[in-house]
Structure formats: C-alpha cells, structure tokens
C-alpha cells in the first residue's frame, strides 16, 4: 500500500515541478501585470505543495519520525519568512529570482532530509543564517558607492586567503580546500568567486587600457593557478571562464575570447601532463567502468543512479542514493535523478537557466560599467558552476567536484550563493529605484512645462509593475 502511495506521489511531484518550470519561462513572455503577479504567486503555491507532498512521503517512509515533521515546520517558516521579508523590506525585489532561490533551497531540503536528517538540519541552520545575512546585502550595495573603487582590496584579499589555505589547511579529500575552526570548515574558494568578480569589475571600471588589462589578467590568472595547484580544479575552471567572459564583454573584443580559449586549451593539456590528479579525472571520464578502481568509481556510481532512476525516478526513499559517494553535495544531482527522475532533473536545470537569464537581463538593464560587470560576472559564476556540476556527474565533461548552488549541502557554498543572489537583487533594486527617480523627474518636468495637470500616476505605476519581475 505504501508503495502505491509513493508511486502516485512520484507523478504528482513531477507534474508540480514541470508546471513550476513552465511558469519560470512563461513569466518572461507575459506583459499583463496582473497575470504576472498571479503567476509568481502560484509559483509559491506549487513550491509549498511540492515541499509538503515530499515531506509526507519522507515522514511516512521514515517511520513517522517526529523530527522530520519538526524540520518540515521549520523549513516552511523559513521559506515563508524569506519571501515575506524580501518583499516587505524591498518592494522592488525581483520575484522571479526570489522564487527560484526558494525553490532550489526546497529541492535541496527535500533531498538532504531524505539522505540524512542531521545534514538537513545543519543545512537549515546554514540557510537561516545565510538568508539573514543576505537580507542586508541590498542595502550595502545601495549605500556603499565606494564598492567600485576597492579593486586592490578585492584582489589582495583573494590571493592572500587562497595562499593561506594552500599553506595552512590540511588536505581534505585530496584537495586542499579550507580552514577548520570551531567544528566548521570554511572553503574560501566559494567566496573567492565573488571577490574575483568584484576585482575584475572594479579594475575594468578604473581603466580599459592595455596595461591595466594585462595587470588584471595576471591577477586573475594567479587565482586560477593557485586553485589548480590546490587541486580545486572545479573552482579554477569556473574562475577562468568567468574572467574570460567579463574580459570579452568589457572590451567587446572577440579576439580576447579566442586567445583565452587557446590559452585555456593549452593549459588543460599541460595540466593533464603535469598533475596526476588531472589525469585521473580525465581517464575516469573517458571510461568510468574500465577505470572503476582507479577513480572511475564515483562517476560510475553516479551513472548507475541516473540510469536506474530513468525518466520518472524510483520514488522518494525507494532508491539507494547513499551508494553514490558525496551524494549530499558534489553528486546531489544524481541522487535527485535516481529518486525523482530525469524529467525532474531536467526541470531543475531549466530553473537554473531561467535564473541565469534573469541575471543577465538585470545586467543589461543596469547603467555603469561596474554594476553591469558584477551582475554579468556573478551570473556567469552561477550558471557555469551549475554546468560543471551537472556535466561532471553525468559524464558530459570530466567531474571536478563542485556543488550545485543552493541545492547541495555545505555552509560555504550556500552562504556564498545566497550572497550572490542578494547582490544581484541589490543591483536590481538599485536600477528600479533609479528608474523610478528618473520617471518622477521627467513627470515633474513635463507637468511643469505643460502646466496641464494631467495625472500620470496610474499608467506610470502599471508600466513599472510590468517590469517588476
């Protein structure tokens, strides 16, 4: 009987996810502000429904453990508070980004609770702290105009902390990744991504002279080299691609893209020859089954999970995602595909894409080189990390061990992603308010010049709301 319930819930969850995903894109093509508002509100309904059904299954399958029910309650409170706090504190917040942030957190909560209650509880704490911190970020963006001038600080802090990790930290899982104090380990590479984006954006805002481009490239390259040397290949690769993208957009020079691509390819070949840990990853990628005992094990287990799950998944608690190594972080996508199915997995990818499109839309609307480059850079960090993660666990590209932002377990990853989202929200709010100011000024000017007291409030508000995604 319980098997039957799980089977039915499986389909319901997929349908909820599919409808949610559809609305992520449909909202872009809707111009009627009322139906847009309904759509965004419905997204929250879908999310809470999916959360509820999944937790009912988990509750039932985990022997009606009260802890599960308690955690569910806490998560609902957190998610609802997040939506309320953001919308009340910042009425101009991008609802699309906010909703998707909560949706991705929800998917992570479900899967982590399924994998291990302790992890899910810790993740909940990280999320609560992270959201609390992220709530003040938009104010900082708005008030601190000096942010665009601090390029030496961004670059300096980045390199120093990376070197510190390299020198001080103990090896964890083959890669030198972080500091540990007070039981918490901090992975600076997660935050370095943000710092580097700020460094590059402020440096290019300062000058686009060839000399300064060379300097900026050298600093960025140093970041990448330290990361590769620390065997954190995933972060190194992400920073490389992010820098290249920012360089291309800032200079509008496709030649840089080409040169960077060639240099990257050369560096990859060199890395393959120089570092054994790079070689192992590539071989495991080429044939994880033949190299099962030599590094192919992880990817092979991941593929077993995805293949066993098929389109519809085997149902929550029906699979064996604990067989996948680091299923809670680096391989969480495989665990999701196993139990919730590949359709759900593809929907998840599409949600990430819609977040990215929204980020880039915001970047395009912004004024000022610094803000535009920050939004572009952070958007690229986000989407490329999603790509490296999912591509790696599905054997599309060699696996490099990065997390799926907001879904994977991990305090550093979660906190840095929440901050990234909040920075972009801050930029969006800044732009909305600037535009509002301008519109008001213009209205005042028009009203003054024509003296005719035509009230322009309504139409203006509507237009503004239509933009308020």
């Amino acid at each position, binding site marked *: 009987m319980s098997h039957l319930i799980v089977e039915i819930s499986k389909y319901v969850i997929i349908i909820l996810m599919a409808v949610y995903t559809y609305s992520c894109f449909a909202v872009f093509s809707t111009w009627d502000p009322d139906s847009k508002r309904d759509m965004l509100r419905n997204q929250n309904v879908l999310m809470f429904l999916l959360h509820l059904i999944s937790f009912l299954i988990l509750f039932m399958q985990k022997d009606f453990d009260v802890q599960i029910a308690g955690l569910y309650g806490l998560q609902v409170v957190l998610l609802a508070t997040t939506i309320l706090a953001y919308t009340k504190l910042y009425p101009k917040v991008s609802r699309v980004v906010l909703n998707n942030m909560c949706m991705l957190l929800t998917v992570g909560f479900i899967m982590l609770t399924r994998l291990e209650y302790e992890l899910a509880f810790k993740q909940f704490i990280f999320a609560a702290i992270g959201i609390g911190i992220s709530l003040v970020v938009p104010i900082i963006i708005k008030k601190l105009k000096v942010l665009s001038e601090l390029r030496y600080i961004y670059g300096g802090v980045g390199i120093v902390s990376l070197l510190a990790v390299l020198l001080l930290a103990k090896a964890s899982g083959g890669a030198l990744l972080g500091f540990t104090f007070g039981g918490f380990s901090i992975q600076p590479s997660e935050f370095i991504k943000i710092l580097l984006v700020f460094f590059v954006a402020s440096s290019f805002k300062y000058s686009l002279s060839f000399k300064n481009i060379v300097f900026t490239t050298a600093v960025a390259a140093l970041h990448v080299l330290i990361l590769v040397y620390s065997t954190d290949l995933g972060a190194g690769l992400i920073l490389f691609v992010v820098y290249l993208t920012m360089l291309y957009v800032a200079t509008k020079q496709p030649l840089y893209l080409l040169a960077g691509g060639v240099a990257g390819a050369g560096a990859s070949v060199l890395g393959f020859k120089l570092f054994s840990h790079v070689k192992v990853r590539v071989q495991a990628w080429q044939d994880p089954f033949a190299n099962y005992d030599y590094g192919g094990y992880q990817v*092979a287990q991941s593929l077993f999970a995805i293949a066993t799950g098929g389109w519809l998944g085997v149902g929550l608690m029906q699979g064996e995602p604990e067989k996948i190594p680091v299923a809670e972080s680096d391989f969480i996508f495989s665990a999701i595909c196993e139990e919730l199915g590949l359709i759900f997995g*593809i929907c998840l990818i599409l949600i990430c894409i819609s977040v990215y499109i929204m980020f*880039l839309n915001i970047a395009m609307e912004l004024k000022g080189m610094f803000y535009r480059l920050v939004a572009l850079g952070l958007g690229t960090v986000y*989407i490329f990390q999603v790509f490296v993660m999912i591509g790696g666990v599905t054997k599309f590209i060699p696996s490099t061990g990065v997390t799926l932002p907001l879904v994977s377990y991990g305090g550093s990853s979660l906190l840095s992603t929440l901050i990234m989202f909040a920075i972009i929200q801050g930029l969006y709010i800044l732009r909305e308010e600037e535009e509002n100011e301008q519109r008001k000024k213009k209205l005042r000017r028009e009203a003054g010049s024509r003296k005719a007291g035509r009230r322009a409030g309504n139409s203006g508000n509507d237009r503004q709301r239509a933009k308020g995604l």
Partner: protein
Amino acid sequence: MTAKERRAYKKENKQKKREKKDRNRQFAFVTYSFVAVFLCLIGYLVYFNVVRADEVVRSPYNARQDNYAKYITRGTIYDRNMEVLAETVKAEDGSEARVYPYGDLYSHVVGYNVHGKAGLESTLNFDLLTSNAFILDKIKADFADEKQPGDSAVTTLDTSLQQAAYNALGSFNGAVVAIEPSTGKILAWVSKPSFDPNQVSAQWEGLNSDENSVLINRVSNGSYAPGSTFKLVTTLEYMRENPDTYGNYTYDCSGVIDYNGVSIACYNNTAHGHEDLGNSVAYSCNTSFSNIGLSLNQDRFQKTAEELLFEKKLPGGFGNTVSHTGITAAASDGDKMMTAMGQGKVQVSPYHMALITAAIANGGELMTPYLLDYTQNNGGSVVEKKMPKSYGALMTAAEASQLKEYMKQVVDYGTASNLGRGGYDVAGKTGTAEYSDEMEKNHSWFVGFSNMDNPDLVVSVVIEKSDGAGRATDVAGAVFDQYYNQ
C-alpha cells in the same frame, strides 16, 4: 504634443533602443552561448537515458539492482522449450528460495544468485528484477502488500543438447559450447567440473577454495593453448600473404623438422609425405606448419589474429578472458614455429575458438552470440525479444569458403574422420595441446560445424588432461548426434 514633437520623441526613443542594443550585444552573445551549452547538456541527458542507460544499469558493478528484490519477486529462467532452469519458490512462512531443478547441469551458464552472482543470474539480474506485470496486477499486489511478479527470461539454451554435452564430457574437466552460426544463439554451454547451484550458499567456502577451480567458467574464462585448432588462424594468414600461390603450396613431411637447432615432430612422428596446404590442415601436419610459420610476417600475423579477436574483449558480454598470441617482433625461429601450430605462448578460451569457427561457418560474418531469447511478463506476454545481430566480418567470404573446404577434408579423410557418420556432414579441426611436461596427457580440442552448405551448429570442445580415452571429437559427435536425432 505637436506632430513635430511626437516625431522627435519617437526618433529619440528609437535611437535609445538602438544604443541599448549595441551596448548589450556582448551580453546577448554570452547569454545565448551558455543557453546553447545547456541545450547540449540536456540533449546529452536525453540521449544517455534513451540509448545508454540500459547498458549502464546492467553493469555488474551496479549493486543497486538488488534493491529491487525488496519489491519484486525474482523472475524465472527458462530454456528454449520452457523448461525451468531457475525459479524463486515461496515457502509457507513467506521466505523465498531460489531453486535450480537441473542442479549441476547448468551450474556455470545459469549461475547463482548469492555471493556476488554469476552466469545468467548476474547478467539478467536487471530483467529478472523488473516487473512489467499488467498495471492492475501491480496495484492488486500493492494493496495486498505483496511483491510484484518479476519478468521471466526465456533463453536460447536447449536442455537435450546441454545434457548430451554434459554426459559426453563424463568425468573429465573441460568445456563445451554450441552456437547456431547463422543467428548467434547459444544452445549449450557446459563447463566441468560442475557444482550444484542449489548448494552454493552452503558450500561456498569449499567451492571458493576448490583446487580444480570449480567456479571458473571454463567456456569463457578458461585459458588453453589451442594446439592445432590455431592452424586455422595460421592458414588464413598464409593465404593472405600468398593470395595467388597458396594453392600451389607443397611440403614434404618426414615426420620431423630441424631448423637452426629447433626440432619439431609430427604427432606420433608420422611422416605425412608430399602434401599441399589442404592436406597439411587435414593431417594437422606440425612440420609443414612450422615451415609455414617461418615464412610469415609476424606483424601481419598479429594483425590477422587481432581481426580474429585476439587481444580483445569478445562480443556477447560474457566477461571472457582475453586471448593472446604472444607474437612479438623479436620472435625467434623456434617461437615462430611453435606459434604457427598453436603452441608456444598462444592462449585462447573455448568460447573464442567457437566464435572464429562460427565466422568461418557463416561466410566470414560473425553473429553476436547471445543467451537471452526474450523476456516475458507474468502473464506470458513478450516484453523484449532479442534479434540476431551481426558483429561484423572477421574475414572475407572467399577466405571463409576456402577454410570451410579445408575443414571438410579434416573430417573426410584427416584427423577427425571418426565424425560425420550420422547422416549429416561435419567440417572441423582437431587439436592436441601440450600443456606441461606430462607428455602422455594433453588437452584435446575440437572445433567444427555441421552441414557444410548451410551450417546448423558450431561446437567447440576442450578436454583437459585427456589420456586418449576422452577425445574432443567424440564429445562433439555426441552433441551433433543429439542435435540431428532429437
């Protein structure tokens, strides 16, 4: 607003839009690029799930399959006539037991479902633990909190042939495999010593440490010197190196050949006298083949051997041991002579020799061997039917046809003339492989097929430590007799 003002406003607006588009050209390019990359990723995932997933799930490394056993009753394995080879029987207390009605007869090919699994129980694990039962049956089982009925597998195995091969091997250790060359269907697969799969759990320690390696599947994982059966490979290479003149080959056999201090004798020192290539094969003349071996280009020989699947994983997916020729660029004359007659460092499995023979019988084209004919659900409806699949040509049709002729002569008047007297014709090649210093005991080999014009059945036999009483040709004969007289 006057008309002039409106025009100016419109113009300004247009200009702004164009500026914005210009400003954002790079952003758009970046966005489209990443979206394109993701579309590739999603496309790949769809491809993976549609094309590759099935194979991945079946990987023996995938321990996940056993999880299904919690919800699904393992399906039955049948032979081609629906004789039960393995089934799950539920006791009154609800516990399940896997029962193998034929005991030792199918030990290696059907395998067992404990201690890491083996045989069909391992390769068909996923199919047996998949339920394609009618949806209402499934719901009914769910409501009753019962397991779903797993799908059953109907194999290509033929119990009467299996029994004939098993009996003919008697108390010898060795292996027999019988394949339909036109389709690749495997009809019999015997490895001895055998064990009772019903007792694997109880006797695991003993089986695992058995000095005769009873658990080794000798058909696919036995490594033997092929002896004279390898002369088929040597002959093919000689034909390839001398495409116009191999028909004119002659040699005068005096029973022994001495070359640069290496001496090689024919079996029992028999002098075969003046002979051509066909007679060299028919009489399995060692001295003539040593002579041929000395003339061969070792690189090309190795290449031909690799085309015949040496140094490779074999088709069929039975996890075979890879065969080696041991040919090196630095081969001495003695090595060349030994290799040409299938001694020296050459190692093959009976399964591999069966594939080479099947390709010869089937005009050069090898059909991928298979054991699973189809799967069916609990109601008997076919879920998936396996169709014969070509692996590709191992040699040209002309080469296959010539080798067939030579193999026919082996049975007509050569070393296997005791065969083919049951109202059907047989072609083949015998072999006697020395495996140690125990000169009076050799591995006895036979590979061959019945019905020259339209080959019906390929049989490959090896008997370990045959003392002359157990001959591979007799075992093959018993299998052919059963095939035509059943």
